[in-house]
């Protein structure tokens, strides 16, 4: 399936043009994307560090997950909205960018990692809730999450550079 005609159409819509050609709107959206990243990834990182057994030791894991994840979720929604608006402002270039493609795959993998964690080892969290160093499967989930999200951030940043673009923009 070739999505390029759709992205070309999308790029020509009034909203896309308006964001792209704006003086202030585009920087505002980009800044929101970075700042909501702090909210989202900051919270996720604190949970991951607890899962790995290096941060917030002594705080019950269910407490960290239960009380921080709602904030992370809020951050994710804002980050996703601002991210989609950024994509909307230039879908042709973004969709062809190798870093963007890797980033989307990585985000998918973080989702799989989170689901695996929640539906396996986290089901039995009552058994290891207070352990300073959680079981290896929880530690592995924490490490995978941190590594994958770091790669998402790195790809997101590199996406701005046009080294591998077919059309330099």
């Amino acid at each position, binding site marked *: 399936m070739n999505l390029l005609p759709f992205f070309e159409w999308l790029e020509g819509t009034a909203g896309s043009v308006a964001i792209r050609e704006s003086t202030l709107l585009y*920087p505002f959206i*980009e*800044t929101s994307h*970075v*700042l909501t*990243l*702090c*909210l989202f*990834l*900051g*919270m*996720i*990182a*604190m949970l991951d*560090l607890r899962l790995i057994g290096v*941060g*917030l*030791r*002594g*705080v*019950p894991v269910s*407490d*960290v997950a239960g*009380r*921080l994840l709602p*904030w992370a979720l809020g951050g994710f929604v804002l980050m996703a909205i601002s991210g989609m608006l950024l994509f909307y402002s230039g879908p042709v270039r973004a969709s062809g960018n190798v870093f963007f493609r890797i980033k989307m795959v990585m985000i998918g993998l973080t989702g799989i990692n989170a689901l695996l964690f929640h539906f396996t080892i986290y089901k039995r969290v009552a058994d290891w809730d207070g352990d300073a160093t959680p079981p290896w499967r929880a530690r592995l989930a924490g490490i995978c999450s941190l590594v994958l999200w*770091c790669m998402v*951030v*790195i790809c997101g*940043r*590199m996406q701005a*550079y046009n*080294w591998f673009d077919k059309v330099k923009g």
Partner: protein
Amino acid sequence: MELLPVFQWLEATAVGTTIRESLWLFPMIQCGHLLGLALLGGTVLVGDLRLLGWGLRGEPVETLAGKLQPWMVGALGVTVGTGILMFLSEALKCYYSPPFWYKMGMLVLATGFAFTLRRRALGTRWGRVTAIVSMGLWLGVGFAGRWIAFY
């Protein structure tokens, strides 16, 4: 004191020149800066949310602050370290960039606040005000920082 010659000298240093002339170095340092920023944001927010009575409210404020402190200092170290490297590579651009100066002002206030008043406010009735001031200052640092790229 005239600062422009200082900035010119900083930009001409070997470190600044190496980063500026490399294709990969600046973007890689930027990535480190962003990742440090995310962790810094997490440690600040978890602490401030607790001061507001949200987030990890099962933990005593002082205990939580103690557990967050090393990560906050580490994240600040990474962010400031990578920030200095980026600054060296484009010191002149920064000199003429209004957001850069706003950011530096906010950064001094935010770090100063974090290591003085915010610490003292733990467990007092000033907790909520402290949290709001802290989040406001850091938000200002991040916001102004992103705008260095635009102006």
